[in-house]
């Protein structure tokens, strides 16, 4: 498993995609921007490009010829994807600490980058994973439909969450009103988001393994 992860890091994925999280995180410095787009760049750009690279480089054949199991191949690939997701979100979260201090009196039309907002972002990536990975592992090389569906799912979640925060008073209070001062509540939402992300990704892994075991390597 470890060797497969290292193979992806050294050979399968262009180093650019490990720099991209730092660049997208810098977008957090734009005052009162639509910050949910920052983690969405991972979904829009990184995944289609990385999966396209695996397909064009015939990675599936290379990995299959190594002394590994199909289960480990899925486990390693999902580990790498989660690693990239962590890099994107953690970098953006770190920069957002400066954002809040740089622009203390700004009016946010969209979500302000508080802990609760980041909890929603974790959920969004969890939803992205649960749609993307099981669809992708029906073939382990066709990524177009899986990337499209997972991106749509993630964007829909972001829109619904933003809409609810704007229109539902109770939700508005949490993300725009008094709830922002309740650190415990904000951190609880973040923790819940991380847990939901972990649960959805674990479920995605299990379904993906089951599907990949059926895949024939042609």
């Amino acid at each position: 498993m470890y060797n497969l992860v290292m193979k992806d890091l050294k050979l399968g994925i262009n180093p650019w995609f490990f720099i991209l999280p730092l660049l997208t995180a810098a977008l957090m410095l734009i005052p009162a921007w639509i910050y949910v787009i920052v983690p969405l760049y991972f979904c829009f750009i990184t995944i289609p490009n990385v999966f396209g690279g695996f397909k064009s480089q015939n990675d599936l054949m290379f990995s299959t010829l190594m002394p590994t199991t199909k289960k480990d191949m899925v486990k390693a690939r999902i580990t790498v994807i989660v690693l990239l997701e962590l890099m994107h979100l953690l970098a953006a979260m770190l920069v957002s600490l400066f954002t809040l201090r740089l622009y203390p009196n700004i009016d946010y039309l969209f979500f302000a980058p508080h802990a609760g907002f980041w909890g929603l972002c974790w959920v969004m990536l969890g939803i992205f994973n649960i749609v993307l990975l099981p669809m992708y592992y029906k073939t382990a090389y066709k990524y177009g439909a899986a990337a499209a569906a997972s991106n749509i799912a993630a964007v829909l979640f972001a829109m619904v969450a933003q809409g609810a925060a704007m229109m539902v008073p109770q939700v508005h209070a949490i993300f725009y009103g008094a709830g922002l001062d309740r650190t415990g509540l904000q951190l609880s939402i973040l923790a819940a988001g991380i847990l939901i992300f972990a649960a959805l990704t674990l479920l995605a892994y299990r379904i993906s393994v089951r599907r990949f075991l059926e895949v024939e390597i042609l």
Partner: protein
Amino acid sequence: MLALDVRNLHKKYPDFQLKNVSFQLEQGYIMGFIGVNGAGKTTTIKSILNMLRIDGGEVYVFGRNMAEHETELKQQIGCAFGDVDFYTRSRLKTITDITKKFYRNWNEDIYANYLRRFKLDENKKIAELSSGMKVKYSLALALSHGAKLLILDEPTSGLDPVSRDDLLDLFQELIVDGEISILFSTHITSDLEKCADFITFIDDGQIVASAEKNEFVEAYRLVSGSEAQLGVIREELIAYKVNSFGFTGLIRTEDFDPSSDLRASMPTLEEIMIYFAKKESLYV
């Protein structure tokens, strides 16, 4: 000891199926796996390597079930599918550095030896190698991790005659001490005349014969005679060709009557393959 024991493999596709494929390869020998394009050679090899989901049958490598001990057994198997077609824009050095981490018995000295012998430059990219050099690189990787069973799918297909000859010499060299066994598929039968100990012949997804090379060839006779004689023997022939002098056909030795007036000769592997393919086309 059996290096490879394939038992009753079944694999069904909508328009093709492997039917009851069984053969055994003794340790220390070379087996040529022959058949025309589309006969099922690659499907069989991919089934052996657990790359396809078989509908039935079992594969044992060194006495252990491949499906149950895949990771362990792959440490002892070296495989090559034609030439290397993955990460072709990467340097050999990069691919090797990644590959060797997967193998417990990787031997850097053996690898360096094969690089020298095959005149492979580690700083070249895979895309810069010729087909023959790509095959040699695959072999260098397989042999450097101490593989005891080499499974090679058409390794000689893209090679010039000199490189083919060199490779076949290497195959013979490898099996000298009786540890390494080689199964290689090909449709270039002259390769097998030179170095194979056993022949397994697959036709339309079924094993026609799997036997020691001479025994395999001796099981058939190439007969020729007049058109009138064809009428008498037609039913016994596997397939035949009619020409202006009469006919030439392939027959099983057991079905051939040596006292007949027909001219008989020993067929080459290529002729056996051609007549079996012709038999298929008769039923299409």
